[in-house]
């Protein structure tokens, strides 16, 4: 999918964009509806998300992340902008661009595709309850308190599950905890 994005960026290839559109449209919309967005708004945000991929593809490069993660972040930010009129999220990527420029050039470049594989394997190894809190957070868009209420567990339990999951994912990519 990184190749499709490159075609969009470099060649402005409408066919490559169509491929990404067809792949992600149903998924992004499904996620937004799970997060409580109404159907019409979900369709609108989904289209805006994928058009942002077309418009902002020049901001993306493979060494800064992964296509699905990028699309996830755009959809997340647009949804937040819609429901909370938030000013920050939509620009976080730009902040990351700034960070990239100040990053120590001697540092090893990160292979995000490789990291994604490691993360995927680590997710598969997570205990069900830790995976569950991540899904409720990332896909259902629930706050920590809402997750605690949904699962009928103390807030501290949700926090500790998230913390443990985070550390395991971090460990999976062989970086220091």
């Amino acid at each position: 999918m990184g190749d499709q994005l490159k075609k969009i960026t470099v060649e402005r290839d409408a066919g490559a964009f169509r491929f990404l559109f067809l792949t992600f449209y149903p998924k992004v919309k499904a996620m937004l509806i799970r997060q409580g967005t109404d159907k019409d708004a979900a369709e609108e945000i989904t289209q805006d998300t994928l058009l942002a991929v077309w418009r902002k593809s020049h901001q993306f490069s493979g060494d800064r992340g992964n296509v699905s993660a990028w699309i996830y972040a755009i959809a997340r930010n647009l949804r937040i902008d819609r429901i909370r009129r938030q000013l920050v999220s939509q620009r976080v990527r730009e902040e990351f661009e700034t960070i990239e420029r100040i990053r120590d050039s001697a540092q090893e470049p990160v292979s995000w595709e490789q990291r994604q594989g490691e993360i995927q394997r680590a997710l598969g190894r997570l205990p069900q309850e830790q995976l569950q809190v991540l899904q409720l957070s990332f896909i259902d868009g629930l706050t920590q308190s809402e997750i605690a209420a949904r699962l009928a567990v103390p807030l501290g339990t949700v926090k500790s599950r998230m913390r443990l999951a985070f550390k395991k994912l971090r460990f999976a990519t062989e970086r220091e905890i």
Partner: protein
Amino acid sequence: MSSNHHPLPETLVSYASGTLSNALSCVVACHLSMCSDCADDVRQLELVGGLMLEGLETIPADTILAERAATHWAAQHLPGEPEPDSLPKISDPLLPVPLVRYLGTEVAQLRWKMVVKGVQQCWITLPEGSGEMRLLRLVPGQLLFKHANSGDMGLALVLQGVCRDHAGDYLRGDVIEWEEDSPRQPRASGDVECICLIASDEIPVTFARPDQAPRRLRRRRYLPELRVREIWDRKLALTTSIAVIAGIGLGWLFWGEAEDNPFEQDELVQTENNHLVARGILQNGLDILPSGKQMFAFSKGSEFRLAVKMTFQSQAGDYCRQYYCRENKIADASSELYSGIACRTGDQWAVKIQALIPPFRTAAEQVIPAGEGEDPAMDAVLASLISGDPLVGQDEAAVMNNGWKK
């Protein structure tokens, strides 16, 4: 570029999933703009979001809709030119870019309001339901915040200067996070003014003042605890006036019983079975006085003013109260201030500690001194006793109405 103090992992998870409030998100975003490690973590967490997105099951109807929409966009011609970046023009080295977007101006242009002497704040307007966010300027020595009595969380980001607590020094870009079980009291440190961005989920953050502030800072109007006292004062004003007129020369008691003991402290405590217990106004006050309010009594030509500062449960489960009592001697206009902690034992208040506070610290009309930690010994006793958060409002009233039974 990185920091030494970061948001907690679960906070980064919630940030990456977009489930933090605006206020907390802004603080995290500002931290990310200054901390490549956390930015890396968030990117990695977005991989998790992307993978979960990829794994979502879809319904066929949406696939058909996607086909239609894709065809529509192809027919309409996709927007050809990428949008240019629209980063703000304001360039203030103090402000992280995400904050500039909220403020829309430089720090020098902000309108600050004094909270207490040495602490100024500037509220940042957010949409309703977005949490609270403000900038704070503190002179060295001032507390950034006291732990609020709430299970919710809050974040502070140091933008200038140094803050310090038991976990170490917080420099520019460092985050101080507080939650229910980890009360913290970071304090501006170093030589320069400290500027922090502070955000919370609708929690009022209580400001406190430093242990060693100059006397001129210790003024009643800076005491949030005493706001309620003003109402109480008005209610008692008439009674007090009558009591003063009638009491002088007669030596009768407004609260408690008259005694011949020459030691003023004995108006407050007495020894029973080798233990100090409260008596007179102190006993009455500890029984019925809500935290933050004060009462008056007259005995032997002195006016006693008692105020309860705080109610808490000890680790043994007893209810304890920290109090202050000022004696104003009418004859020579001298004044003495005592503070103490007493815990309910059976039908009595066992006094754990009571000490005379040096007279230079507080004005004669003031009962509860401004600031925390008036006496290290008092603080030590308090720290050894207290368990959990102080009881306030209806919780305190319920225990009081129940006769302070465990």
